[in-house]
């Protein structure tokens, strides 16, 4: 399983202000939180979640997950659609 995360937007409106990270989950037992949190079905549910309509300056995340069958799932999510635990995992990548 390969997880790729990129962010864009925010207060600055500067592309370079975002980040781009990737994690190759080679050992699912030790990287269980990533496997569960970035499960494509879970991400799909998050993508349907609406954020606050008056929020401003939030970043947008593009998350691509390549599963073990080599299928690539791409999600585009606003920052407030991601639970804090997921954002902490992204920061730790």
């Amino acid at each position, binding site marked *: 399983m390969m997880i790729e995360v990129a962010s864009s937007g925010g207060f600055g409106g500067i592309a370079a202000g975002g980040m781009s990270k990737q994690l190759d989950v080679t050992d699912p037992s030790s990287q269980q939180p990533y496997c569960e949190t970035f499960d494509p079905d879970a991400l799909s549910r998050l993508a349907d979640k609406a954020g*606050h*309509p*008056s929020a*401003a*300056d939030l*970043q947008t995340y593009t998350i691509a997950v390549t599963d073990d069958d080599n299928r690539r799932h791409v999600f585009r999510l606003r920052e407030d659609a991601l639970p804090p635990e997921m954002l902490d995992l992204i920061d*730790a990548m």
Partner: protein
Amino acid sequence: MCGPAQCHNPIHCIVPPHMLRVMALRGDASVQQMARALLHQNEEVRDERAERMTGGLVPEDGRSGLFVSSALARSVPDRHVCDRRIHDGEGKAALPGRLVRGEGDAPTGDPEVDRAYDGAGTVFELYSEAFGRNSLDGAGVPLTATVHHRRNYNNAFWNGTQMAYGDGDQKIFRTFTELSVIGHEMSHGVVQYSGGLLYQGQSGALNESVADVFGTMTVQRKLDQDVYAADWLVGAGILGPDINGRALRSMKAPGTAYHDALLGQDPQPYHMDLYVDTTDDNGGVHINSGIPNHAFYLYCMYLGGNAWERPGQVWYRALQQINNPMATFHDWAAETMDAAIALFGAGSCEQVMLRRAWRLVGIAC
């Protein structure tokens, strides 16, 4: 219909659900997403208490069919009491984090905490003393902010209920608790409680511009600078030490705030001829805001004095009166013209110069 007992978000009161459903069906991808979000929010808040309506739109006295924000409708100023609540995110994403400085508490010694506290107080004073507004919602809502949000986080935002400030990665950004940034984020709250401007395309760029206008006004009033002494920068000094730039945006000269190998060139236009059509950044909300930003700057140059006096009063009144979350630049310009006439009279210098300022950025009104 959106009745007063069912609705707390001003936008829900303005855009009828049937229109939202049409937008969700027929709009382009971004409009569909926006409409779905509003409809979803409507369902979530249906059972919330009616008193959470504070700050929404109310009928204007004696003029049937007209609506203004409740903050403007109050004829007798309330006693305004600032209630700041600064939290430490401790590098994590959960909000609001640990409360570290409440109203009246002594400085903590953490510069981020203390700047967020002092800055929130300065913004509160601007709205209270210059515009007669009691906090973001006009009804004294506490000012909640989180500093040290996440790790190396290159951003600050308003999430609908609070402000959050990252520490920056110390390369591109070194801090976000600079006064114009604090004023900017809090002003998104004021926009929200003034009827709202949808965060997409031109209405989103207007939302951004209003936040920049009142953010820079906060700095100017704090420093007691008139319009000629002010630097008209948003986010001055927040860029990293090796970045070639003075700030994130310049209202005086949009497009010139930075020019750097890593960041590229400041993309803001100053005229409608240079309007940027893009799907990035919610349709360029942080880019095309340069146009109304520059119109405000030009208006200030024509009038002189302090920005928070005549020009600021016109902008503030327009924000309270516009009642159109999907306003275009032209709609906004027309609303500022109405505000100038209401405040200073038809044919007044304030109205004539405003028309001239808008014309200089390519907007006829």
